[in-house]
Every structure is written in structure tokens, then in C-alpha cells.
């Protein structure tokens, strides 16, 4: 095997490095030849896929199976063998509601509060995220001074850990934080951002948009740059007003990218946990409690660790995410076709 592939060009053929690489790579020759002999040429594909499939099975599919089993069993024991089978009881109690429009009327009121908060959060976030990312991309796509600098600046928060982002904003927003300091300096009254439910939700959305917008801006920017410049010149020759250029040329041609961004934002928003949890702790009360936080608390943080109920809620959330992912794949395929 090592004889057929010539070493990379940068390394002289007879150098020590080249011999070393060939020597090490050569160690695999005999075992590989032996395996290939054993499984045949076609079988080799599975040999190479094997480690990855094993990894996925161990850390993705197996946990999903365990989670499924957890959701169908009761008790507080962590070990499946010690848990009694109870069928769909957890699902039934999750779905037990006087009215689905009123979380308080449900048996698992926090779950439904989480669902309702997550829906609200997702809706606001999608509008705010796509809106700001689009405007930012449109501005950064123009020939402005320091364009490269601004592109980097807007992308920078994406590189930060969500927890770091939330902590930074907590310092800014808390009672004696930076923002309230500025407000007092300007002669205003301090605002207790984490005590007012409306403010807490606003900042939860704001911070997550701040943190992730750069990523979606980048996708939209790539889409904008793929629009040929001569279309804009043709539109100019056609006497098109700037607003009409935006609505009749830019947006329709950007539409495929916009859809991708919309779906990605949606999928991420439904899973929101860490940023909001660190920022508001789900409060005040349950005003910013998201579904994932409910699951986390039900399983690990409450006095009684109800793994089964949390697992059932996970399964429900998982199926929503599965549907959304299918939607995204379908859109991506349709675009490619």
C-alpha cells in the first residue's frame, strides 16, 4: 500500500520524514491485507465505517434506546433492571391537561409552561435573529469602510461559550450591573431586568440573538455574494428603485438561504437551555423556563429525581426535533435538485 501512494510533495522522497511516514503507514499494510483477504473488497467499506458506527451507536443510538426504556418505566432508580415497567403512564401524565392553552391547568404545569415559553422564545427569536442577521448581512455586503473588521466583530460572539456569553450579559444586566449604572448616570431609575417577566424574556431573546447572529449572518452573506453583480447593474439600467431591488431581486434570490437559516434557527431555539438558564435561571418564577430546563430539573435537580418523566418529555421534544430536521433535510435536498 505504501508503495502505491507517493508521499506529499512538500516532503522530499528520500528524506528521513518521508521514510518515517512510510514506515509507520507501512505497519498497517499487513493487517489491512489480511482483513481485506478475510472480508473481501466490498466488505472493506464496512470495516472503515465500523469505528464510526460503533461510536454513534454507543453515544447516540444506545442512549436514545435507554431513554426510551426509561420513559416507559417508573420509580427513582437509575438502573433499568431495578425499574418497573409502567407503559405510557409518564406520557399520559405529561399530556394530562384541563386546557392545553393554560399550562396551570395541566398536571405537569412546568412542562407546559416550558412548552409555552419555548414557543414564545422561538417565535421572537426567529423573527429577531433572521431580521437582524439579514440586515447585518445586507449592510456588510456593501462596499463599506472596514468591512472585514465588522465581519469579524459580528462573528466573534459565535466563538464564545454560551455560558460565558450569559455571564457577561448577567454582569451587564443585573441590579447593579453596567446597564443600570449607565441608566442611573443618565438620571433614570434602575430597572430590575430579572424580576420583570417581560424584561427577562426580552433579554433571553436578545442575548441569544447577540450570541448567534454572526453565524447566520455569515450564511446570508455567502448567499448575497453568490448573486451576480451584473443583475444589480441590469436592475440599475432598468431604472429600479433600491427598495424594489431588495424585494424583487435580492430577497427572492436569497430565499433558499433564508429558508435554511429559518429552519436552523428554529431547531436551535427549540433546544435552548444553557444561555437562558445561566442568564435568568428560568425566572422570575417560571417566566423564562424552557422545555429543556424542565427536563434537566425533573431528572437531576429536583428533590425527587423523576428520570422516567424527564425521559418521556425528552422523547416528545426529540420527536419534534426529528420532524424539524426532516424538514430541513427535505429543503436542502430540494435546493440541491
Amino acid at each position, binding site marked *: 500500500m505504501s508503495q502505491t501512494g507517493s508521499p506529499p510533495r512538500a516532503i522530499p522522497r528520500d528524506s528521513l520524514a518521508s521514510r518515517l511516514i512510510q514506515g509507520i503507514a507501512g505497519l498497517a499494510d499487513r493487517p489491512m491485507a489480511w482483513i481485506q483477504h478475510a472480508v473481501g473488497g466490498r466488505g472493506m467499506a464496512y470495516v472503515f465505517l465500523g469505528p464510526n458506527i460503533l461510536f454513534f451507536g454507543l453515544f447516540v443510538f444506545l442512549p436514545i434506546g435507554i431513554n426510551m426504556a426509561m420513559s416507559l418505566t417508573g420509580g427513582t432508580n437509575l438502573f433499568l433492571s431495578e425499574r418497573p415497567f409502567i407503559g405510557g403512564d409518564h406520557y399520559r401524565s405529561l399530556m394530562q391537561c384541563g386546557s392545553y392553552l393554560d399550562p396551570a391547568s395541566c398536571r405537569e404545569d412546568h412542562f407546559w409552561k416550558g412548552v409555552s415559553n419555548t414557543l414564545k422564545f422561538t417565535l421572537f427569536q426567529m423573527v429577531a435573529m433572521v431580521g437582524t442577521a439579514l440586515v447585518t448581512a445586507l449592510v456588510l455586503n456593501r462596499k463599506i469602510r472596514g468591512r472585514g473588521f465588522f465581519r469579524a466583530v459580528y462573528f466573534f460572539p459565535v466563538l464564545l461559550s454560551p455560558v460565558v456569553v450569559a455571564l457577561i450579559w448577567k454582569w451587564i444586566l443585573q441590579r447593579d450591573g453596567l446597564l443600570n449604572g449607565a441608566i442611573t448616570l443618565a438620571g433614570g431609575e434602575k430597572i430590575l431586568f430579572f424580576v420583570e417577566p417581560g424584561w427577562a424574556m426580552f433579554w433571553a431573546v436578545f442575548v441569544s440573538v447577540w450570541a448567534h447572529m454572526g453565524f447566520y449572518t455569515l450564511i446570508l452573506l455567502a448567499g448575497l455574494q453568490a448573486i451576480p453583480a*451584473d443583475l444589480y447593474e441590469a436592475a*440599475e439600467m432598468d*431604472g429600479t428603485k433600491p427598495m424594489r431591488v431588495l424585494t424583487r431581486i435580492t430577497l427572492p434570490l436569497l430565499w433558499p438561504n433564508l429558508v435554511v437559516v429559518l429552519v436552523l434557527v428554529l431547531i436551535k431555539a427549540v433546544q435552548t437551555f444553557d444561555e437562558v438558564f445561566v442568564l435568568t435561571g428560568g425566572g422570575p418564577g417560571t417566566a423564562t423556563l424552557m422545555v429543556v430546563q424542565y427536563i434537566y430539573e425533573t431528572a437531576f435537580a429536583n428533590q425527587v429525581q423523576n428520570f422516567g418523566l424527564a425521559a418521556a418529555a425528552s422523547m416528545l421534544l426529540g420527536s419534534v426535533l426529528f420532524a424539524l430536521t426532516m424538514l430541513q433535510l427535505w429543503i436542502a435536498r430540494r435546493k440541491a435538485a
Partner: protein
Amino acid sequence: MAGLVLKGIGKSFGPVEVLRGIDLDVADGEFVVFVGPSGCGKSTLLRVIAGLEEVTSGTILIDGQDVTTERAAERGLAMVFQSYALYPHMSVYRNIAFALENMRLPPAEIEARVRRAATMLRLTDYLDRKPGALSGGQRQRVAIGRAVVRDPKIFLFDEPLSNLDAELRVATRKELAGLHAEIGGTMIYVTHDQVEAMTLANRIVVLNKGRIEQVGTPLELYNRPANLFVAGFIGSPRMNFIRGQVTPEGRLVTPDGKVTLPLPAGHAPGAEITLGIRPEHVLPAGGEAPDAILTVDLVEKLGSEAYLYGTLADGTALTLRSPLEDPARRGDSLPIRFERQRLHLFDAAGLAIRP
């Protein structure tokens, strides 16, 4: 329809001067072709006229109005791009109607105009298609249709045929000539192909390195090129050039003295002169006294005629166009004559010497 006047147009991109001192008058209804080698500034000049590029110096008048600082959208011109620049997400109909919708014409008027243009350009069956589902020639016609419906003051074309195959190019060229005859607008057309220029133009503007070398009708440029550049650029195969010095007897002798050629009277002995003669004006000497002997290196037989590529005794390359099917063979020594009335003479600076 409108006339166009360019006065002292200059254009630089940063330190690079792309256009220099362009002066030009285009009459109302005229078909003017800008021709020149690739990179000489044709597109830039067209875009300056369109308003897509700002001038660095000079003035642009359309119909006597100074439009130098007007934006492209305000100038009322239409442009057909080399890439066609059709809106890919709009149907052919919407592509053609788009500019009319921008003008806020009544829908009935828009429809009537689009249908008329579609009929003229044989696009009626394709109005519902997207540009992606059209052939190159059809896209080309949509691009032209988009310009035609607007009834612009001036049509601008930037190498509109360069993306078509040879056959379609000839066909579309004829259609464009027909279009001009039919609607009679002022048209400015950019090409690097001198055959397109010769066949389409009322007047040709030859550009080179950002300057105008000569402006004239196709035949003026062919018969009376103002300088070596135009002489070499217009005509295919290109004109033959033989450099030499005038002898005391009034003949032209090449630097190595191996070839002497006749010259019209009146040139000062010792002057450096370049003699130009088109391939179609070099004849086999037949029975007459030859002007020179051509050693044939290559024969191209086109059926209707043949091109002979050869060298003179001093090594100067020379092309001859023969109406004969099979006039000579490689390696032949062919006695040739130059048609006396068809000699072009250029001085040391490359400018034509007019008798």
C-alpha cells in the same frame, strides 16, 4: 432615440488610466461599433456611457443634455450585457416587463409592449419559462427584448454575441442588423470581433489602449486606415507589413537589402517607411514582372479560396489570398505582384502617408 456626444472622457481605476481623451459624436439613429483588442477599454467606455461607471474627466451629452453626473437609472438607456444578466427567478415575460413595471406604465400597455417585443424576437412560446430553461440564443433574445420594450434613448450592447456558437452568432448578427433597420434606434455596440464591426456598423470606432485610433465607416477604415494599428486590426487575414527605407531611386528596400519593392513617387530618399498590402491585394505575378518572390510555408484551402502563408527573401512574413482553389504547394517559390492602387504607406511614427 437620441444622439450622444462624448467630450474628453477619461477614466482611471486608481492609478490605472483606462480611457484617455475620448471625443466622439454619435448621430441620432446611428449604429456605432466600438472595436479593439481585449482590454483596450471598450466595456469601460460603454459602462461610462451607461452610467454604471463614473468618469474621471470629461462630459457626456445625451440629446444635448449634460448627463455626466446622472445615475444610470436616470439616463434612459438600455444595455444588453455579455452575460445577458437575466433575472433567473423571473419568467421571460417578467424579465421583459420588469423595467416597464418600474416606470409604472398601465398594465395593458405593459402587456401590449411585451407581446410586441416577444413577437418580433420569436419569444412568444417561451414567455412563461424561466431563463434557465432557455438556450443561449433564446436568452440572448430575451436580453434584447428587455432592452427593446423600453424604447430607450440609446441601446448599448457589450459583446452580446460572444457567448453564442459560430452559426448562431452569424444568424443573430443578421437579426440585430434587421432590428436596427426596423426600429431605427441609436445603437452602440462593443465587440472585439472586427467582422461583427464591419457587418453591423454605420461607423466604427477603433479603440486601442484607451484611446480612439480612428473613427469611420467600415469601408473608410478598410480602404484608408489612419495608422498601422487600424490597418492591422481591420481586415482578415490581417494586412501584410514590410518595413524598409526609401532608396535614392525612390524604391523601398528592406534593412538587409534583400528585397526591393516599387513605391509611388514622392518619398524622400532615406525615409523609414512601412508598406502595407492586404492579402487580397497580393497577386501571383503570372506573366508579368514580379515585385517579389514568396516562399510558400503553408497553404490553407477553404474551397472558395485559399490562403498562402509564406516569407519574402528577407524573412518578412506575407499572406496572400488567392481566388484559386489550389494555387500552390508548400515550398513553392511563387512570383507575386502588389496591386499598385492598394498600397498603404506609413511613416516612421506609424501614421498613414496620404498622397
